[in-house]
């Protein structure tokens, strides 16, 4: 691209950076601007600088104390979900008992290898029940994915998967017939080599597909991108 083209290209989007960091562009404009950002250093620098300012904006809200009832509710849920990892077999149960917390990082690579071996031979470590493996369809990114279902538990296991775009995270959705994809609390990224083990939600009644889309950090309530992983459950 010549300097002249570059200036013209930048000029077309010169006012969009601020609206972008404030979340004030509509979804189509966001996609267009993000494509532009890939080739425009000037706009990328402006977005970086303005994002730093935007991260301060929450502090402009009048400050309140969070209700004690909220604290009790959140910490009770966390304590309940943490129980399995405080049992006598912390490492094994941490993986099996808390499937929704997928990201273990490099320190758990050994544990993951043990689990992966168990999956290969079709057995669950804690119950001895059979594991059903379903290949998922990956589109638009590189890598592979499969569902591993054991009894009422399930995991999405990915290999060599592309990381989500900067500022984004992968979000899991549950698709039921004739209904829009339902959001879950499952947000994830992958290791630097594209590996990941992601626990499925426990309530899968009526779900026919597990979908994964890239979403802005923090997740979305409705999908903003096409699925990159589609895994049939039936």
């Amino acid at each position, binding site marked *: 691209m010549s300097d002249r083209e570059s200036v013209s290209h930048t000029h077309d989007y010169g006012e969009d950076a*601020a609206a972008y960091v404030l979340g004030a562009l509509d979804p189509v404009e966001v996609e267009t601007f993000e494509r532009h950002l890939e080739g425009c250093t000037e706009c990328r620098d402006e977005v970086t600088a303005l994002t730093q300012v935007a991260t301060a904006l929450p502090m402009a809200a009048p400050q309140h104390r969070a209700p004690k009832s909220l604290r009790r509710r959140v910490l009770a849920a966390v304590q309940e979900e943490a129980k399995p990892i405080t049992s006598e077999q912390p490492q094994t149960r941490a993986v099996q008992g808390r499937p929704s917390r997928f990201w273990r990082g490099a320190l758990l690579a050994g544990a993951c290898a043990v689990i992966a071996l168990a999956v290969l031979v079709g057995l669950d470590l804690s119950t001895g029940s059979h594991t059903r493996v379903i290949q998922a369809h990956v589109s638009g990114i590189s890598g592979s994915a499969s569902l591993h279902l054991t009894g009422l538990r399930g995991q999405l296991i990915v290999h060599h998967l592309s990381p989500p775009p900067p500022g984004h995270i992968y979000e899991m959705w549950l698709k039921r017939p004739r209904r829009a994809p339902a959001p879950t609390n499952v947000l994830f990224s992958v290791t630097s080599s594209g590996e990941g083990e992601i626990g499925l939600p426990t309530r899968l009644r009526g779900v026919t597909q597990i979908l994964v889309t890239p979403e802005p950090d923090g997740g979305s309530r409705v999908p903003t991108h096409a699925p990159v992983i589609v895994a049939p459950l039936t």
Partner: protein
Amino acid sequence: MELVRHGDARAFEVVFDRHADAAFSLAYRICGSAARAEDVVQEAFLSLWRTGVRYERARGSVRSWILSAVHNRAIDALRRELATTSRDVVDERLAEQLRSPQETDTEAERRDDARRVRSALEELPSDQRRVIELAYFGGFTHSQIAEMLGLPAGTVKGRMRLGLTKLRLLLGGVEGVLG
């Protein structure tokens, strides 16, 4: 945060206690309802706990991640509600959200940060401050704001840019405001 990622409930409690007030304040500012704000904050923190989302220091602080998650969820909730509400009514309600009878003392550092950011925002020309607040706290797109204020879309985006640029200068670099 490393301990939270590995399922330490007590470490999570520390993170919650450190950031819950700021998270609730932001959610309440956007939602205008304590009940909805509580739902939003609960969702955001449980998402942090359940997904063990990667914390990358280079990409910002824990507080930034939590507040970003709260902001996204609160705006989503607000927009769902707006689908059945007229813009004028919403704009009036936004003004009502500026103060709340529930405001209480909080820890001194956070109060100082908040005062500093609010003061900088108030120094902006009102037309620039207004479009920033409508976008960030009101969840409106630039085209909705343009229609609401009877301005060309380019003018709205220009004011956003001028406002944020000036805010950046006023804050003199915001490192430390969000620790």
